[in-house]
């Protein structure tokens, strides 16, 4: 089962994404900051990381850098969740091998799921066996 790590300090944003991914058949992990995300990722290596940039405690960029230094996490695909103002981090992230990013201002769940699906396949069974 593909696991997606959702990292965002705003639960109001993070939670519906996580819920949607679960509905789509992914296992989700949630973290409110970079440090928590690193801890989680080391415990359970995710297949994809959705990473917010502006966060307290440890921002997304630091988190990404640390992940790339960790041999076990270096090749985990990362999708950046960014506001328009975080563009410079996108560029920095690109250097660190980040392939994709999503602008929060143009957010769309479908778009998100499509991008996640590029890196990790969901568990179709869940959809099929969805609970009521």
């Amino acid at each position: 089962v593909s696991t997606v790590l959702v990292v965002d300090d705003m639960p109001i944003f993070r939670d519906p994404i996580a819920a949607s991914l679960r509905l789509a058949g992914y296992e989700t992990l949630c973290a409110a900051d970079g440090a928590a995300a690193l801890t989680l990722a080391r415990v359970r290596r995710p297949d994809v990381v959705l990473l917010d940039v502006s966060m307290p405690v440890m921002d997304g960029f630091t988190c990404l850098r640390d992940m790339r230094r960790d041999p076990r996490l270096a090749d985990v695909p990362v999708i950046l969740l960014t506001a328009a103002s975080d563009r410079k981090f996108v560029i920095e992230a690109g250097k660190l091998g980040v392939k994709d990013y999503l602008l929060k201002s143009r957010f769309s769940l479908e778009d998100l799921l499509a991008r996640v699906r590029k890196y990790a396949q969901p568990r179709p069974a869940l959809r099929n066996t969805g609970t009521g």
Partner: protein
Amino acid sequence: MFRRAVSHAWDRVLRPTLLAVGVTLGVAVTYFVAAQPGLAVALPSGNVSAVWPAAGVALIAVLCLGRWGLAGAWLGHVLVNLYVFGRQGQQVPSTAAFALAGAVATGAAAEALLNCVLLRRWADTRHRDPTEFLQRVSGVFTFVSAALAAAAIAAGIGTVSMCVGGKVAWSDFGFTWCTWVVGDAIGVLLVTPLLLPRRRGGPSEASADAPRAELATARRRRRAVAWEAAAVFVSLVALGFVVFELPGSGSLGRPALAFLYIPALVWTALRFGSRGAGAAVAVMSALALCATLTGSGPFVRAGTHQSGMHESLLLLQLFVGAGSLTALAMAAAVAEHRDAAGVVQRMNADLEQRIAARTSELESANRTLRHEISRKAEILQSYLRDMADRKRAESALLQSEQRFRIAAASATDLIYDWDVGGGDLQWFGEIDKYLGYSPGQFPRTLKAWEEVIHPDDRSRVTASLEHSLQTGATFCEEYRVLRKGGGVGYWIDRGASVQPDGGVAAAGHTLRFVGAVTDVTARRLAENTLRATDERLRRQNAALVEVTRRHAAVVEDLPAAVNAVTETAARTLEVERVSVWLFDPQKTKIRCIDLFQRTPARHTAGLELEAAHYPAYFKSLEQDNTIAANDVHADPRTREFSQAYLTPLGITSMLDAPIRVGGRTVGVLCNEHVGPQRQWTVDEQSFADSITNLVAVALEAHERRRAEQALTEHQKALLDQQHAAAERQQHAEQLERERLALKDAVAAMEQVLGVVGHELRTPLAALRAISEFLLSDDARATREWEVFLRNLNDEVVRMSDTVDALLEAARLNSGQAKWNWTEFDLGQACDGALEPARPLVNASRVALTCRVEPPDARMRGDADAVRRLVTNLVTNARKHTTDGGIEVAAQLLDEEVEGVRRRWVQLHVSDTGSGIPPEIVERLGEAFALNAGVVGARHVSGTGLGIAICKGIVEAHGGEMTIDSAPGRGTTVLVRLWADLDGPVKGPGKGELLGGLALAGEEEDAAGNPGDGAAVEAAGVQTAAPVVPAVVPATGVIATGVIATGEAA
């Protein structure tokens, strides 16, 4: 006519020709005669003589008679030569003989000419009588030298001619030449002194009108001289007989005896001058010649007859020459001495004469001086009596009057004799002339006399005469008489009654009346003129003084000054028109700047006259002359104006004075007289000159003022320019300031927009995520569905609050906030403020306490605003506090402020939270400070609007807010609010609090959303209450995030 022509011809042609021919012939004959002695002692060949007095004749002829004398000499010599040739046996003179004669004669003439020229040159006779050279020693030596030089040349020519002509052998050339030279030179020396004309102006001639005694003395002297001359002559002849052993005794004689002649010659020279010396030498040489020819005397030499004779003659000539030279030199010395003495004597006499003249002059001056001193003393006395010049003039007049009286008493022009009974009035003297009648025309009657008396004087005079007849008193009257043909005469008439026997008549019985009339017309007229002049001068002076005074007052005002001058001139000179004209810069025309006419009195200006039309007038002006034209139509300077100007205006006389400024003629003052012609007097001219100076002064002042004005204007323009530049500079600075302010505002606005984007757009993204999730079909099946729905609602509320806060901050910032000012209970307000926060606080581990003292404290202000203030502060504290407590304390205090008791509220909100870094504390109150300063530090996230709004509220209540915070130590916000204000303190100015936010707020309002704005505004603070819950759950989620996830997992 014919006679005149003849006379003319005689004068111009015939007489000079005859004179020249006569002179030539006379000289020729004289020369021929003078040559005879020479020929007599000529050398055997007959061509050359050791004695040649003719040379002297030739010199005299040339010296005194000029070219015709020269011609005569030449002719004479030709004749002599021809005569010699003839005697030598040539019956018919050949052409060669003629040529030879001519050549020799030319030599002789050349000798005379050269001699004359040399004399004139060497003896410096150019400026004197050429014959005077023998009167000076230097002249004598010059004479001898010239004679020798001339003789040498003549002898040269003559001898060469002779040799060429074959008359003399070339071998004899030297001897012949010597003989010739000596002969000619001695001839000149002998003859010239004898024949030289007498010196003119000699002392003997001056005695023509001398006194008789002097004449007698002179006669006696002449007689003595004659006796002496006779004695000298006798002694000379006697000496000759002794020395030369005459008559021819044949003995050779003793040469030393010849020296005996020296004293005789010296005597002659001393006593009788050069002429006497010449005569003596002539006598001596004649005697010597006779003796020598007869073979006796000291000069006779033995040998062949011919050569011996010749040598003797040469020796003789040398002796004669030496004697002659000695005598002449001596005579000249004497003459010089006499001349010098004469000069000294003349100078002496001249000096004496001058001294005498000077003495008489001095005496005369002395007399004048004495007279002057006495006169001065008189004047001084009258001066002491009176004071000023005028008094002195009066005194002079008085004196003149007195003098006149005296004169009148002694001088009488007419005498009359009136037969009182018969009526005849007999006049002695030229009565007709005095009254302008032809001789005898004036009737000799009393009536006629009475009629000529001036009507104004007549009654007075007849009354006086009557009185005199009645009383026998002397009649004495001065009266005017009317002359025939106009004019008035002044008579002084004195008369008295006389008896037929000659005695003065007794009263009342007069038969005859005799008197004398003195005509004093000239004197009276002169006096009148003097008085008139005096009066005029006084008037001119007064006018000058007055116009100068007026002028001084108005000199700054050119037209006024010129008007004053023209008016004064017109009045003083009594002329009709006075005008001032100024040249244009090129001096091609003059322009009238003021014309004053007396009748009627008015000023005009503007006329122009061109120099091209009136050349004579302008030329005269340029020469700076005052033009005083008594008759303008006749005067060449003003005649040109006659037709166009003078005649139409009736101007008859003009007095034009040039106006000079700085030595330059700049214009003219014209005084134009209308009516009978005027004779401009000197004083009127000088008055006109004086008054032009005032115009000149006014012109100068005018020019100066114009220059000053120009300068002032220039300075003003400069100042204006400087001011304009300064203003531009200020304006530019102002613009720069505004530009910088705008730049700041734009930056602030961009910041605001950024924050708005972050604070509103990010939640919008979340809302979209939630709503999309909820809309999905599967979502409703999940447990989270309801939670997400609530979250959705909460987020919308939070965003609404943010928008409210933004609008409120904008309102506060723009001063448009509306305040509901009341007195309210502080405790209730605080409770109300904490109400929305309390449940959430209760849910956390944070303790929230509130304390109000006194519990019933009341204050004046906007209750809602104060509540919002507390809410915001608590909310902020809550954000930073995760543990410990939040304490709110409000205290009502009062205090004396400037003599007034004031109430105020002190509010503390303190927490035990994380605290705020100092750099952020500094910027609290600026909108969005937290976000702007700590981007990414979401744990202190917030718009910062809360603090900004708090600050606006505090300031509206006249209070202040201080924040004391440090990381890890918690934060305390201390707020002081006045509790007794009647209304809000003027809110923070636009832009001060929120930068460009106010603009954003306005734009938002203007953007067509008034309904929302109004609704938000109406909702006011109430809507601010749910601010806190939006934050608190978030914290909760964070706290539980991992766990929740874990649960999810």
